[in-house]
């Protein structure tokens, strides 16, 4: 599959969204709403659940399936209150020594007047900084689109996994083509250059694991993900929480090909 085909697959309307992953992998999910500061951002779903018996915090960016759902969820593009809601749940997870699982699927953080007025940049900056020192295990799974800072906000984790057809990029291929080359028809080329496919990102060390997809039947994937998440969270949970945060720092510290 070419890069642009992955982009299309990642955005395909029939693709399972965050809530589908929550429903198919966890038991006893109980949703917890609101950021306690401004409101409840429906683009972010968060709560507590069990994973193979283990209590966990689950946070997902949710795009919705139907038009009504998509509007309600703002097409999966979170406002600052969405990131503040996610951060609140992460801090609770740390307090109660629960691991955190994040599902990432967003074109990006929302760009709008309200988002800017309420500090979109500050909200993302804060969650990034908090996650770099969070003393509990975190695994993030990129399930569809991983759009820039809005995706990274939920992907500062001990391990980042990615579905075979998910993509993760600093900018959309359309944005890249139009800004760099002033030519929207070169989107496919931009997608190649950005190295945004699961294979590329595995090679770059940005993700630890690529989960194979089996067409439209996601049941085998859910089963594997459930097994892998439970196993890895138990193993991460055995590490001292402060040591884990230090390892997370080293995980991100290594990025960058730089001539010294």
């Amino acid at each position, binding site marked *: 599959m070419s890069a642009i085909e992955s982009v299309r697959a990642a955005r395909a309307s029939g693709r399972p969204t965050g809530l589908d992953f929550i429903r198919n992998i966890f038991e006893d999910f109980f949703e917890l709403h609101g950021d306690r500061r401004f409101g409840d951002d429906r683009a972010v779903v968060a709560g507590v659940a069990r994973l193979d018996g283990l209590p966990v915090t689950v946070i997902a960016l949710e795009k919705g399936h139907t038009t009504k759902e998509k509007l309600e969820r703002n097409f999966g593009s979170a406002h600052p209150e969405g990131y503040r809601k996610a951060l609140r749940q992460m801090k609770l997870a740390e307090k109660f020594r629960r691991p955190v699982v994040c599902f990432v699927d967003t074109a*990006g*953080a929302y*760009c*709008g*007047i309200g*988002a*800017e*007025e*309420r*500090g*979109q*940049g*500050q909200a*993302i*900056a*804060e969650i*990034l*900084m*908090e*996650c*770099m*020192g969070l003393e509990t295990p975190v695994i993030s799974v990129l399930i569809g689109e991983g*759009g*820039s*800072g809005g995706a*990274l906000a939920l992907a*500062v984790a001990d391990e980042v996994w990615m579905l075979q057809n998910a993509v*993760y*990029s*600093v*900018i*959309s291929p359309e*944005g*890249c083509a139009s*800004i*760099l080359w*002033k030519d929207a028809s070169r989107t496919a080329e931009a997608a190649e*250059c*950005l*190295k*945004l496919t699961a294979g590329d*990102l595995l090679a*770059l060390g*940005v993700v630890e694991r690529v989960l194979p997809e089996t067409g439209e039947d996601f049941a085998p994937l859910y089963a594997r993900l459930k097994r892998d998440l439970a196993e890895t969270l138990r193993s991460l949970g055995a590490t001292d929480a402060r040591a884990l945060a230090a390892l*997370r*720092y080293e995980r*991100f*510290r290594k*990025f*960058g*090909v*730089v*001539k*010294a």
Partner: protein
Amino acid sequence: MLGKGIFKKPKNTLEASPFEATAKKPGASGEVCVKCPACRTALFLGDLAANGRICPRCGAYFRMGARERLDSVCDADSFEELFSGVVSGDPLRFPDYENKLAQARARSGEPEAVVCGTARLGGVPMAIFAMEPEFMLGSMGAALGEKVTLLFEQATLNRLPVVGFTVSGGARMQEGILSLMQMAKTSGAVRRHGDAGLLYICVLTDPTTGGVTASFAMQGDITLAEPGALVGFAGPRVIEQTMRQKLPERFQRAEFLLEKGFVDAIVGRREMKQTLSLLLRLHGGEAAV
């Protein structure tokens, strides 16, 4: 959406900053002249530099280069540069990137879009970084992220406060996902510096947007901004395209951020050094002997 508009000439009146030093052309005497976009006065570049890059006629701020910025706040001869050998590679072999880097180096005279080091300010030792607007509008790639991270790590080790001046169009898209990773990397270093009980003052200058806003620019213990500086996550043009409506005149300017509660104070260029000096001293900074 990070880094959008780095290379495009702004079409939006909000983005066409009146503070940008454009249209350099030799005047009648052979001296280089610029026109102040705010009041249309023709100014000699030398006079403008001598006046802190503030228009002597109307008081508009022009953008300031990293070295000029450091000179304007550091005690004379106290700045010692660090990490100047850390420069951008072309990790993704992105088309035309090597070329763009060469142009940026020629245009700015800097090897990378940030200058880092240690210095004294009012006698107080500190670590300091200043971003360079003429180098791909301060966009953040791996080298920039590395230099900022190294500075915070060194400041943590040597127990120094950090003062930073940001100017950035956002992420450097030619480094793809590796530029995005710098947001997390720098955030980690800022956090460790903060956990060690050390002070970080960030000064937002025109413009600070995208991935830099969403990481170390908004992580200061104290956040100052220059008057009129454009500061936001998304650039105004992107928002106008999304919202399909005109934005209010002073939207995303420093004064707007102050009103919304996202900066501590707006500080003019002429008061910058004494303000920083005061804040450093109020946080335990003592003049080195």
